[in-house]
């Protein structure tokens, strides 16, 4: 797998990889994809895909609010809070 493909995938996945990791993944991902290639042996032109096996459809509930978490509970997982909100890096200048 080309280095720039690995770098692009890492960008999509928000993972910062070291040069060593990129090299390792180039080889490992190539090997894994080669192994998976055997699926080409099976004919699936007329086959419908299965995304889940429950057979359930349209599992809905009434659009009514229910007890949920308090703001304090939600914010309790991190110290990076400000005025009752999560702090994050700016994405606009």
């Amino acid at each position, binding site marked *: 797998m080309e280095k720039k493909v690995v770098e692009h995938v890492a960008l*999509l*996945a928000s993972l*910062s990889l070291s040069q060593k990791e990129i090299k390792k993944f180039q080889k490992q991902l190539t090997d894994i994809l080669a192994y998976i290639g055997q*699926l*080409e042996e099976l004919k*699936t032109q007329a086959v*419908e*895909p*299965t995304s889940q*096996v429950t057979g359930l459809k349209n599992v809905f509930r009434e659009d009514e609010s229910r007890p949920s978490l308090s703001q304090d509970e939600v914010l309790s997982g991190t110290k990076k809070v400000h005025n009752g909100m999560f702090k994050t890096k700016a994405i606009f200048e």
Partner: protein
Amino acid sequence: MKKLNQLTIKEAREGLRKKKFSSLELTRTCLERIKRLDKKIKAFLTVSERESLEQARKSDKILNQPPVATNRQVLLGIPVAVKDNFCTEGMRTTAASTVLENYFPVYDATVVQRLKEAGAIIIGKTNMDAWAHGSSTETSQFFTTRNPWDLGRLPGGSSGGSAAAIIADEVIGAVGSETAGSIRQPAAWCGMVGFKPTYGRVSRYGLIAMASSLDSPGPMTKTIEDAAFVLQALAGQDKMDATTSPKEVPDYLMALEKKLPGLKIGIPKEYFLEGMNKEVVAVVQGAIKVLEKLGMRIKEVSLLDPQYSVAVYTILQRSEVSSNLARYDGLRYGNDRASFGEEAKRRIMLGTYALSSGYYEQYYLKAQKVRTLICQDFDRVFSQVNLLVAPTSPSVALKVGASLDDPMFGEIQDILVEASTLAGLPGVNLPCGFSKEGLPIGMQIIGPQFSEELLFQAGHAYEQATDWHKRRPKLT
């Protein structure tokens, strides 16, 4: 005379109700066992001593009331271990990853709620492969759990901690989760009962998601009857998980008392792999003969080559993993994505690639279509037989270090369980013998969706005719 920590759930329930001992004594004995042994076995990431003793005292108060109050709570006063990917409110939950090393959930998973409603005492959280990525428990970012039968070997995974805790008699019952083999395989390597229910039988709400179309919580116990007690507490529709089944939960315990129906058992010839460990083959074939003596009709059947399910599973699981792990941004809880271990990164990378523009049809869509073929294959076979029996794992417990540097270790170890998990089928591992070196060997029984009662009946009949489930490793 058994020590209290050596009891099964059934024996503990009886003893508690007959007032032979208290839940406090039972819980204390387990805690002492954990204190003494767990530095060698390393099954637990978190032990909740104060809270579990408090719960034990509360249970004893209830147990001292008339029986009508206690009968609904099937696990009242029983100490259980919970795999560390189930959210436990106020109790650290890590999924064995440093990303969540200081994560304290603000809610309980439905599985945990139902355990509590059933009166169980959650004694602690067990070690696992980080994010459930693995079949060894070696990818835990904290430490590797050891197989109690041979401390130089792996317990299997990803529910290795729960398996080890049970077979080492550190707890009376345990819960694990399976995405492809993570309940059945460590159960096979540790010589105990691992029950993976039908997908959708038990709620995934609060289970740290690995592959959403596959994850199945389930019991890990000392006997098949114990598994029925636990599943009775856990099973059933949940408003918080739209993939749970609206099907009524049968009385599993009553099913165990019914006469075994005439059963046709299919033995898939493709599951006796070329080059597989000969002892595993011999021991499982011996177990099949026992099933025959019990009156079950044995018939050879043919299934799609399991190697295809490895490929399908690898793509679908890693794709769903890449999506489910996208939420860990370190902003609202946990550490940031730099804390992911190598195995997690590798799976995220492959999954992201398989779902990305230009590759989606070739990999993910193709895998979904072959998944349909796998489901149809099982439907075909289950029109001829009631249940399938096969080895659970192609090998016995491997040595510590065996999984490192093998980018597909997990998927290849789980070759005999992946097809059934892709089809959402229930399966149970039963210990059925040992290798010459004294390592456990397991056989699995697989059934159609929602055939848990049949699995319990067949498994119970096998257990009553054998004593493998009574064997324990020598631990001092």
